[in-house]
Structure formats: structure tokens, C-alpha cells
């Protein structure tokens, strides 16, 4: 099963589903001939597509809407906020090449504020699956929820076997650890798995949490890590402002807690474009580089075991 096959299956079983795209067909090329009129390509018109999706939702449809992440969230932002958000309509936003996944496209295509702006819309749910399997476990629940949603589409394969029982608002706790807990979402999950192994090989107790649901966030899982780990690390292909680091800060403040936090994010800048492997290495987001930063931080702030 892949992304396209999942939509096809769900749409054939439930005629409420319509598939829309602003001429981004990479993952859904075979759907026009299967869904016929329920496949609507509005051309390069993100605003019109979102407005029309709201109209379709008013009629009881569930539009699953596709565009490149930046154009979907930024060009059409006011339509999402005003038509989908105020209307509280079940429009399902699927964003292609979010975060580091736009690798060589350059800053015009770098959706690294998407989590920030989407979670700012009342009622909008936000999900960033770790890989294809994680995403395929999540989408059926996300698409049949009555809420509007934003999903960072991620079709990367991983060796990791995820918990198939995805729940909206629940994190996937991979491990608990007393020295450090890594909070991560999206495609960087795989890198942090390597980080976890590297740190464990040095004798550290490492927690890893896959925040597959960013809004609603799994408050209990995050607070548990806050209470039981000496250091928290947020890892995200997103601006430092408004993403996971901000979510954590809001949670801490709300609960009158404090913590040692190392945020790994893009601070007030876009990333250097290149092939994904180059980007990860240059920006310091490979498993190895993340582990080096964590060790340095532990040395600086926390009584280290190393």
C-alpha cells in the first residue's frame, strides 16, 4: 500500500472523498481515471483550490487537497484560515515536499514555517509523519476526523516498524530515557534513531518520542519526558519560531515547569539548498551530528556520564 493506493481505497469505499490538486500530481497520477469527476485539478491556483474545497465540504464532501507545501500554506494561507478555518470544514491538506524534503529547490520552496502557521488556525489539526508507514497508519484516522487537518506528506521508506495504532493527539514513545529525551517529528525521525543508537553506545539512557501528532500534542508523553530526563532535545526541519520548540515552551509555561532544552531547528534563516543528504550534513541534522551536539550540551549543562 502506498499513498495513492490508500486514497484510492478510501475514496472508492466512501463517496464523500474528493481529491484535489493545484497541478501537483506526482503521487496521485493514477487517480483521475479511477475517481473521474471526483478528481479535480484546478491548475496552478492554490487559493481557488482551497476556496472550492470549502464549497465542496459545505456540500458534505471531504476534499483531500494537494499542493507543494509552501504554496499551499503560504499562497493560500488566508483562504485556509478564512474559508476552511472559520468554516471549521473537514478539508484535508496534504503538503508535498515540506521541510528539508524540498532539498534542492531553494528557499522559495522551503516550507519551514508551515507547522507554525497551520497550528495557529483554530481547530486545525497538524500531523508530521516520520515516514511512509507512519503516514499510512495515520491518514485513515486523520481523513475521517471531522476537523480540518494539515499533513506533511512523507513517502520516505524506513526500516523502523511503527506502532500501527495511530491516535490523534498521541505520540509514539519509542523509548524512555533518564539522560536525554529527543522530541522529533517528520523525516528527521530516522536520523534521531541513529542518534539514539550512538548515544546509547556511549552508555547514555536515551528517550525518543515521535510526535506524529503535533496538534493536538500529546501533553502527557512530553511532560513525562520533562520530568524524567535531564535534557530535552527538539529536532525539527522548521524555523525555531512556532514549531516544536515553541510547542514545548508553551507546555512548560502552562505547567509552570522548566527544563534543560536544546533546540535543533533553523534559527532565523533558510537552509542551504542541495540534495537531501547534503542538506542534512551541511545543516548538521544527520544522526551523527545531532548526537555530537547533544553530547556537547550534556557536557556543558548536565553532569555527564561520559
Amino acid at each position, binding site marked *: 500500500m502506498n499513498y495513492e493506493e490508500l486514497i484510492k481505497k478510501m475514496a472508492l469505499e466512501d463517496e464523500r472523498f474528493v481529491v484535489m490538486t493545484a497541478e501537483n500530481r506526482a503521487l496521485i497520477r493514477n487517480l483521475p481515471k479511477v475517481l473521474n*469527476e*471526483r478528481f*479535480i485539478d*484546478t*491548475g496552478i*491556483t492554490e*487559493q*481557488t*483550490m*482551497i*476556496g*472550492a*474545497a*470549502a*464549497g*465542496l*465540504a*459545505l*456540500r458534505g*464532501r471531504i*476534499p483531500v487537497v494537494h499542493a507543494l507545501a509552501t504554496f499551499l500554506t503560504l499562497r493560500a494561507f*488566508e*483562504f485556509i484560515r*478564512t*474559508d476552511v478555518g*472559520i*468554516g471549521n470544514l473537514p478539508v484535508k491538506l496534504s503538503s508535498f515536499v515540506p521541510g528539508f524534503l524540498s532539498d534542492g529547490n531553494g528557499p522559495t520552496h522551503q516550507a519551514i514555517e508551515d507547522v507554525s502557521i497551520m497550528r495557529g488556525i483554530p481547530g486545525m489539526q497538524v500531523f508530521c509523519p516520520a515516514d511512509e508507514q507512519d503516514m499510512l497508519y495515520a491518514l485513515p484516522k486523520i481523513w475521517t476526523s471531522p476537523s480540518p487537518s494539515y499533513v506533511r506528506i512523507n513517502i520516505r521508506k524506513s526500516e523502523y516498524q511503527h506502532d500501527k495504532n495511530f491516535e490523534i493527539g498521541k505520540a509514539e514513545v519509542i523509548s524512555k530515557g533518564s539522560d536525554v529525551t529527543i522530541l522529533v517529528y517528520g523525516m528527521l525521525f530516522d536520523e534521531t534513531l541513529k542518534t539514539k543508537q550512538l548515544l546509547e553506545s556511549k552508555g547514555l539512557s536515551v528517550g525518543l518520542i515521535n510526535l506524529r501528532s503535533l496538534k493536538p500534542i500529546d501533553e502527557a508523553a512530553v511532560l513525562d519526558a520533562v520530568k524524567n530526563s535531564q535534557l530535552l532535545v527538539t529536532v525539527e526541519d522548521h524555523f525555531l519560531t512556532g514549531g516544536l520548540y515553541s510547542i514545548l515552551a508553551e507546555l512548560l509555561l502552562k505547567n509552570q515547569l522548566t527544563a534543560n532544552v536544546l533546540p535543533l531547528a533553523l534559527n532565523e534563516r533558510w537552509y542551504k539548498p542541495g540534495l537531501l543528504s547534503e542538506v542534512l550534513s551541511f545543516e548538521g541534522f544527520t544522526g551523527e551530528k545531532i548526537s555530537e551536539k547533544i553530547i556537547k550540551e550534556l557536557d556543558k549543562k548536565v553532569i555527564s556520564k561520559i
Partner: protein
Amino acid sequence: MTEATIKELQTTAIKVREHIIKMSTDGGCFIGASLSCADLLVYLYKEFLNVTPTNLKDPNRDYLFLSKGHDVPALYGTFAELGFIEKDRLKNHLKSNDHIYWHPNRNIPGVEFHSGSLGHLPAVAMGVALDCRMRKQTNKIFVITGDGELNEGSVWETILVASAYKLGNLTFIVDRNQFQANVATEELIPLEPLVPKFEAFGCNVQRIDGHDFKALDKAFRALPTNGDKPNVIIADTMRGKGLPSIEARADRWFCNFTHDEITSLIQELHGEGKTEIGSETLTVR
């Protein structure tokens, strides 16, 4: 259309204009744009649309979306006259115990969707039109835009797409009152010639006097039932229509009149004298 029907429509339109004037005090409203489309709304709801207070949940009803939004006093005035809402409810204008404010809210029976941000509802209406066609319904979908609203690129984007999808069940109505917020459209971003613009975008276009019920009736009855082009009806109207003291004036956009001015304006509506307007009416909104 019989003379008797025309008389009835005129009588209702006068009552709707009274409601609009009454909403132009204690906070005020966008009176100019409301008065320009009052005749259009009265005609549509009273005479043409298959929309009644009792069929608002029927998926086969016609749909009318008010995209220009700030003319909502005309819509609510029409709803009050036709029994969608209690007339008394209009007194809740700008009160927090109701949903009656400067732009449409879906909690008011008859409002299909909220608006306020220009250039949105053409696309929303197109989504509804796409679904109605998928379900092989024969109802019609209308969206009223302002003429200033045609500055918004999203309107033209939607018309391109509606044309590509051959949505003959969709009609864009332009309330061509010649003004945007502060100035005449032709002085700022000239729109004319409008008919060939819409035609070039693949639409079936009519242009009529938006205050002439006979002309309105002829145009709407002429809409094809199985057309393969989106329709455009440009209704030439006058900002502030019905009140000579504010008609066709750039500075009568958002007005918050005194109670005395309101009394005088209602007399003026009935042909009794002209109002001396002393209150400051241009407000930042």
C-alpha cells in the same frame, strides 16, 4: 413579469432600504454598497431563486453567495421581509447577543457562507457548483461580487477554472455600482470594458440595469439550463440608490448617521425632501 409583480417587488425593496437605513446608525454600516444591490437581492429571493425559509437544508435548492460581504444589511433586510428571520432581529445589529454585524455570518438562516475578505466566495461557490454537477442536480449557483472586488486576482483565477470545468450552473453577478471603498473604480483600477473581459475568460455575459426588475427578470430567465459556460450578469447599479443625498458619492461608503439623519433619510426614501448630512461618515473600517 406583470406590472403587479413589479409593484410588489418595488414595495419590498423600499422596505428593505428602510431596514438598511435603520442599520446605518448606532455604529453604522456600509450603506452605499447595500443600497446598490437591494433591488437585485429582492428580485432574486422573492422572484427567482429556489430558496425559501423552509428549504434551507434541501441540497437541491439554489445557492446564493454574497461575496462582497459588506452589503449584508441588504441581505438581512431581504431575509427579514421574506420571513427568513424575524424583523425585530435586525435591532440586534452590532449587539453581541446575536450574529448581525458588518459581514455575513452563517448562523443567520439563509446565509450560505461567511464573507468579508474579498475574492473568496467565487471559489467557494465554484466548489458547490462542482458538487451539484457531480450529483447531476439542476439547481443554480450564484455569487454576487462587488466591482471593486474584481481587483482581486482570485476572482479571475476562479473564472478561469470555472470556465475550464464548463460550469454552466454557476453565475457570477457583478454589482457594478462604479465605486470601490474610497474612489470610483475607473479612477483607480479601471475595469472597463468588462463584457469582453469576461467573454475572453470563456463566460456567457449579459449586462443590464440592476435596478430595473423587468431587465433583471429577462436576464435571469435567459440563463441557459444546460449551458457549458459559466454565466456573468453585470448589474449596472448606483451606489446609495434610493437616497439622492448619498447617491453615487465616493464619501458615502461606511456611514454612521445620527438618529435625526436616519429619520430624515427614511422620509427622503419616500420622496419627501433631501437630507442635510452633518455627521462624519467616512470611517476606517
